[in-house]
């Protein structure tokens, strides 16, 4: 199965976990460190919309014998997680959008691809840039790292080569 049209779209429950993958080149460019506590969190820019923000649903990955490790890309990726409910507090919806165009080849995890849309959670209207970045920042700030220790600023597990 390698195209969007042939994959059944799943509903994403509020309790489902969504993984966000952010690249890391060894410099933690998409993370920020609090200069007082030393604790790291994802930068607001790490949850970027173009026009959607890509996330991967844990439950769909598991249904296909995949895990968060399947979405780790070369050379390194930091993965953080939040629930669909947390995403829906800030944005209109989370939609299962498997195998977006151009991402079908050799990427089985794309079957769990979901899109967060940059629309107001209640009205469904497009969010202006200022609202978008604030909501992205709130959601990123609430996220939990999967493979990164925010206290020491290091990856907990290196991906397979």
């Amino acid at each position, binding site marked *: 199965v390698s195209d969007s049209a042939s994959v059944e779209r799943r509903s994403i429950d509020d309790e489902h976990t969504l993984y966000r993958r952010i690249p890391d080149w060894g410099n933690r460019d998409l993370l920020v460190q609090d*200069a007082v*506590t030393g604790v790291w969190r994802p930068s607001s820019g790490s949850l970027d919309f173009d026009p959607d923000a890509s996330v991967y649903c844990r439950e769909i990955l598991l249904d296909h014998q995949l895990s968060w490790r399947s979405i780790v890309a070369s050379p390194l990726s930091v993965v953080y997680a939040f629930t669909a409910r947390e995403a829906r507090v800030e944005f209109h919806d989370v939609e299962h959008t498997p195998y977006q165009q151009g991402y079908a080849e050799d990427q089985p995890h794309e079957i769990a691809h979901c899109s967060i849309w940059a629309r107001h959670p209640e009205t469904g209207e497009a969010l202006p840039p200022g609202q978008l970045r604030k909501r992205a920042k709130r959601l990123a700030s609430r996220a939990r790292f999967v493979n990164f220790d925010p206290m020491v600023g290091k990856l907990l597990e290196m991906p397979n080569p």
Partner: protein
Amino acid sequence: LNALLDPPYTGNASTATASGSDLPDGGKDIVHEIWQRGGRREVGGPTKQELMKFVIDTVSRLLKLAPGWDGKRARRVDPKAAVAMCRLIESLIADDSADPQITPLSDGGLSTEWLVGGASLEIRVTPNLSWSIWAEDQDGRELFDAEFERPGQGRARIEQGRRFLADVSKNVRFRRSRQL
């Protein structure tokens, strides 16, 4: 990038990792040893020049990112946006400022955040050079938020941001500019 910025930020300014462990009288400078290990209130933070060296090194590295650097459709960091970001940072920081933390954006823009005890100041520059600045206190309350169409606009907000940054930077204990 260096050629596009004015002196004194074009030279070999980095002394940020210079050793300060030995005193002229041969004694041990414990303060600097603690400071270099990180995690303690620092004594003698970086100069503005040293911070700008860190900024330019970071931006120069981000300019080399290939398209699709996010594993999806991200565009290259726009060189004009990079220069505009450097100039905005230069206008906001002073000696001992908290470290600016620069993030590439998928549209080719850049974001920079200062995060100090939960309080934050953030600026963004888009590839068309519009830019925004906003600040939140440590409880997440918005202090100000403004957007501008061109880099030359928003001087009052820059001054507001500069004062905010000077105030929160008094509490800095961790610096990523010394860790990387």
